[in-house]
């Protein structure tokens, strides 16, 4: 309960949480708000915003409803952002915990792999991965996670190294628990809070990476995303710049929401540590 109170104590966190709640509500209610495929042609092409009450944000080059695309795009952005962060944190936490716990050669080898992933630009890696597999949503999620798991891995390893010498781990070893069992049952849960604080940054990065991938035409072509809407608007950039500007604003709002929420989380954790 006090965790909630500490979180509410930071205005940034509250604003971020509210922003994300609104976005999540929009994403969840998208099929109700705008039933049917947002990629279907709904009206006259290139209708300007605020002209027709049926299309508050106008229509694009092919006559698709921009607002419907925007609302459905929230689903893709949030889903990819959160799922990619979950995958990245899961991979990172497991590998980091293993490395920290095993030590020696295993640790050395795993950390060189982490180094390898850090010197390859994550975006290039995602590009290569998506081009090898097919651009479906799960592939995009995994491709983004590939470039984001090293941070959580390093953090988890550092946590494990600081925790593993503590008493309860030693006593677990004495009562005969297998090292891996200790790692998963005793150490991992303790390493999770600081990793969580890092997750917000990863979610934000994942949302931006997904947008960039679909902007370059490497997203799932069957779903509408903000990045693909921005790319779509490029061909009429001179006559209808709003087609590219509006989805970008939605992206900015989402990422700001995630950052603010993350700051709230960080403040909360800092206060817990001080208490």
């Amino acid at each position, binding site marked *: 309960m006090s965790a909630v109170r500490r979180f509410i104590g930071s205005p940034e966190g509250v604003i971020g949480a509210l922003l994300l709640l609104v976005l999540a509500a929009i994403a969840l209610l998208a099929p109700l708000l705008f039933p049917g495929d947002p990629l279907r042609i709904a009206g006259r092409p290139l209708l300007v915003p605020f002209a027709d009450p049926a299309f508050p944000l106008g229509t694009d080059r092919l006559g698709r409803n921009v607002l419907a695309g925007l609302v459905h795009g929230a689903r893709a952005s949030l889903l990819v952002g959160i799922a990619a962060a979950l995958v990245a944190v899961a991979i990172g936490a497991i590998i980091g915990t293993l490395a920290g716990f095993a030590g020696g050669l295993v640790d050395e080898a795993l950390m060189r792999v982490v180094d390898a992933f850090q010197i390859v630009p994550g975006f*290039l890696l995602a590009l290569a991965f998506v081009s090898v597999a097919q651009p479906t949503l799960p592939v995009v999620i995994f491709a983004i996670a590939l470039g984001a798991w090293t941070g959580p891995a390093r953090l988890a390893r550092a946590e494990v190294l600081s925790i593993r010498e503590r008493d309860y781990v030693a006593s677990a070893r004495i009562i005969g628990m297998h090292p891996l069992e200790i790692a998963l049952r005793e150490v991992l849960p303790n390493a999770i809070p600081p990793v969580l604080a890092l997750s917000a940054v990863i979610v934000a990065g994942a949302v931006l990476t997904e947008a960039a991938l679909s902007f370059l035409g490497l997203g799932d072509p069957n779903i509408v995303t903000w990045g693909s809407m921005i790319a779509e608007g490029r061909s009429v950039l001179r006559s209808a710049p709003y087609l590219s500007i509006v989805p970008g604003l939605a992206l900015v709002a989402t990422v700001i929401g995630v950052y603010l929420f993350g700051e709230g989380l960080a403040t909360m954790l800092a206060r817990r540590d001080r208490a």
Partner: protein
Amino acid sequence: MNRALRLVGRRAISSIPVLLIVVVGTFFLLESASGDAVDAYLVSIGGGDAALVAQLRQSYGLDQSALSRLWLYLGSLLRFDLGWSVGFNRPIAGLILERLPNTLYLMGSATALSFVFGTLLGIVAGAKPGSLRDRVLSIGSLALYAVPSFWLGLVLSITFAVQLRWFPTSGIETIASGKEGLDRALDIARHLVLPVSALALIYLALFLRLMRAGMAEIWRLDFVRAARAKGLAPSRIVLRHVARNALLPVVTMLGLQAASMLGGSVVIESVFAIPGFGRLAQEAVGLRDAPLLMGIIVVSALLVICVNIVIDLIYVLLDPRVGASEVSS
């Protein structure tokens, strides 16, 4: 200086296994693709018979097993040979070398500008934590850091290239302008203003936030209290004591961000149609040219390693504590 040289040597040697992991990992990732460059080529020429396919595969060495090709690839890497691009029908090394300078201009200027102005504004904000200007800069940088760079590039392009016509919308230089020397450099610079701004503004926000957060930490330390007890000029306390120490983690971050900036330039190059390294990657994807993509990834990893070694050297100059024990021992 001995300290620095030793560090460079050690870093270079420890990078070799990491680079090897990159090469092998990328090789098998691209190997798992369904369809290769020959398939893509056949699609582009409208198909061909089995004999042509076999002949093409043989000429590119694609008929051999994956392991033997990996072995050959590693061998040719040692001779700085990155193989042959099917899509461009040229040696990959030459292709990359031709595109790399454009990306280096873009990345180099964006990095320099964002670092300099980001840390300076970070000092302005961090000089007085909690002050109005700190709040304004903090909120502003948070919002800026949330902006996708490619979208910022589009917005800048709409505003300054399409509407105001101050800068060109795309390309690295005016085509067939016949410009030479300084004129040509100025022309390239004019083409780079918008893409560099788009990339630099995002990272400026990052460095500002890092510097500011670092300074907020340093203000609490004892030696800052000691500096204040000496009655030093506020500017000296802020710059020489607080900012000088807060700079260290920012420099470290500069190295960690090298890979991410290279990735960011891929998208920016696409927005502004700059024939650089990143755009080459996108073209390689489109042409299903796995060896080219492979070469790009290997070269970018090398580039990131080099940047990090340079950053390490700078760090040694900035922090007297690093590597000091080794020198005395």
